[in-house]
């Protein structure tokens, strides 16, 4: 029985909270498993550093991902090179796997559009800030592949639990069902939409069961179990590309997890949730869980863990250096990218701006 054929209420798990095997370990080679672990460590360390950069005034508002590495990395590793990923604003971890340099992620949160200059072949859409608005894009992208007879590639879309309440979630998944597009809709249910808890978001028992409304498959997975996430995503991607007779291509995956930190650096979660709850979920931390499994199966030892820790620190430090030494964007960019060719209006305003800039310099514009 495919992992997708379960009841949406029935959560898929491979590792329990202690890292012991409680389900079918997916077929992943050792190297990739260790890589998954390294990506998770990298994402976690990056996250910590990014939060402190913000605290130091070196970066703007930033949305942390700690606690969600299992879902992000487990799912992104399952993507084939040619697949596409359509993120929300929190998938720095998943983007890493797709080849987006950390420097780009930093630049984006430092307020440079340059951060969205996705490397050729990474196949990532830019972050979408309006909640759920990227879901129809993902459906459209999958649909485009299908129309071009390239449905051997799939498009994975990330969004949160809160996003499932938006009309765009509904319309995007409904189109996917009707046009049977090669899509995987990956819901990072981290229990909170800022201060609004999952139960206030919808009265349905699971988010996975919302798939029923679109005639597509829905499945719930332990989102803090990277191997379970991998298995489910892999199966969903397979089906998206090669549906069997009578199968639909799209799948809604609900990855049950928790955001350990604040919604963003502008948020104070102690106002709306208890430490106790946080602690309960921290016991499910995906990183030690996978580490235990890898150590116990001989794939990882102290030495390799230390080496990973070192290299991760270095990689993040280098990325921060690189981002911070990147030249400030030039104000001309504002005018250059609005249209393929500047319209006369934009050109006139650009000229006016240039004259002012020449006259007053940056002091004529920058505040503080």
């Amino acid at each position, binding site marked *: 029985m495919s992992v997708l054929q379960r009841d949406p209420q029935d959560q898929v798990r491979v590792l329990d909270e202690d890292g012991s095997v409680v389900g079918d370990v997916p077929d992943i080679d050792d190297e990739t498993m260790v890589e998954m672990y390294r990506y998770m460590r990298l994402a976690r360390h990056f996250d910590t550093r990014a939060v402190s950069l913000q605290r130091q005034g070196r970066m703007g508002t930033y949305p942390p991902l700690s606690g969600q590495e299992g879902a992000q990395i487990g799912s992104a590793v399952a993507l084939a090179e040619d697949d596409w990923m359509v993120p929300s604003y929190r998938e720095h971890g998943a983007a890493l796997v797709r080849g987006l340099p950390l420097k780009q992620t930093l630049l984006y949160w430092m307020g440079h559009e340059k951060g969205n200059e996705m490397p050729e072949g990474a196949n990532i859409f830019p972050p979408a800030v309006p909640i759920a608005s990227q879901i129809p*894009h993902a459906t*459209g992208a999958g649909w485009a592949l299908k129309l071009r007879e390239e449905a051997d590639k799939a498009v994975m879309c990330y969004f949160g639990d809160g996003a499932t309440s938006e009309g765009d979630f509904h319309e995007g998944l409904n*189109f996917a069902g009707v046009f049977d597009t090669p899509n995987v809709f990956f819901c990072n249910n981290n229990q909170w939409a800022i201060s609004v808890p999952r139960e206030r978001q919808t009265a349905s028992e699971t988010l996975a069961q919302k798939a029923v409304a679109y005639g597509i498959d829905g499945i719930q997975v332990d989102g803090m179990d990277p191997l379970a996430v991998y298995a489910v995503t892999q199966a969903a991607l397979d089906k998206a590309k090669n549906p069997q007779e009578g199968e639909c291509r799209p799948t809604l995956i609900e990855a049950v997890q928790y955001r350990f930190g604040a919604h963003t650096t502008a948020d104070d979660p102690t106002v709306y949730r208890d430490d106790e709850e946080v602690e309960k979920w921290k016991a499910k931390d995906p990183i030690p869980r996978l580490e235990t499994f890898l150590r116990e199966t001989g794939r990882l030892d102290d030495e390799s863990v230390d080496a990973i820790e070192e290299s991760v620190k270095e990689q993040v430090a280098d990325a921060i250096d690189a981002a911070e030494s990147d030249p400030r964007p030039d104000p001309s960019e504002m005018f250059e*990218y609005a249209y393929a060719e500047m319209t006369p209006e934009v050109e006139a305003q650009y000229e006016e701006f240039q004259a002012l800039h020449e006259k007053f310099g940056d002091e004529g514009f920058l505040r503080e």
Partner: protein
Amino acid sequence: MTEQNLTIVQAVRDGLYTEMQRDDDVLVMGEDVGKNGGVFRATEGLWDEFGDNRVIDTPLAESGIIGTAVGMAAMGLKPIPEIQFSGFMYPGYDQIISHMSRFRTRTRGRYTLPMVLRAPYGGGIRAPESHSESKEMFYAHEAGLKVVIPSTPYDTKGLLISAIRDPDPVIFLEPKLIYRAFRGDVPEDDYTVPIGEAAVRREGTDVSVFTYGAMTRPTLEAAENLAEEGIDAEVIDMRTISPLDREAIVESFKKTGRAVAVHEAPKNGGLGAEITATIQEEALLYQEAPVKRVAGYDVPYPLYALEDYYLPSVARVEEGIRETVNF
């Protein structure tokens, strides 16, 4: 080039057909655009010709239509979503404002959206509520979009082809009041009319009247009537709302020193205000009278029993021009 004698709605169809023939990436999608050929028949026969994968009936969901088109366009297709009436673009407004207009800027040109969002717009057809909207300024006020409104069959096809070929997203609003009001010669082959250029519909020396879309005809009628009174009005059809052909506005105004703006959209914040501001900024010293706005009133568009009182009529336009000339 062979000429055909087409209405505006036929010219829309012809433009779609021409580009779909030329470019396999072009596709049409929306509510009832397939077998039904669109509620105004703007896509008539296209489904038979190009099939289900290029002329796509969608579920009833405007945000879904525009949003999936954004995704398709980012992947390099050239989708042409149709919204059945411009009053139903609002459920998809977030996709237009937050995404259609901004993908290029957001990614420094890595992703662009070569798409055209079509919708019939405007009043005067005795339709139910929400079917008579003329809210082009909702889109003109948003940078990153182009907003085009044709008023003749020839321009319709030529501008539509320009819009489809434009690498940037274009909102293409079609004046449904005159969809079938008259015919004009339209070449069978492909040709373009450039986006961003106004057209002088009637030369004149006393006053410049700026208009577009369905109001072009009553404006021209008013101008003809006034010729009998000895008033020689220049009538300019803006054709593109954004980017606006400010050069054409200023050039004509410098000649006449007087201007009237005519549109069915609400007066407050309408294109008339922008035209006035442009004149101000660039030709104040030529000015001999206030710029008069003959526009929709700042009240909700009424049900059809009263719509004729809402829309600028020939008499209202005439009176506006007279007032300006006699100032």
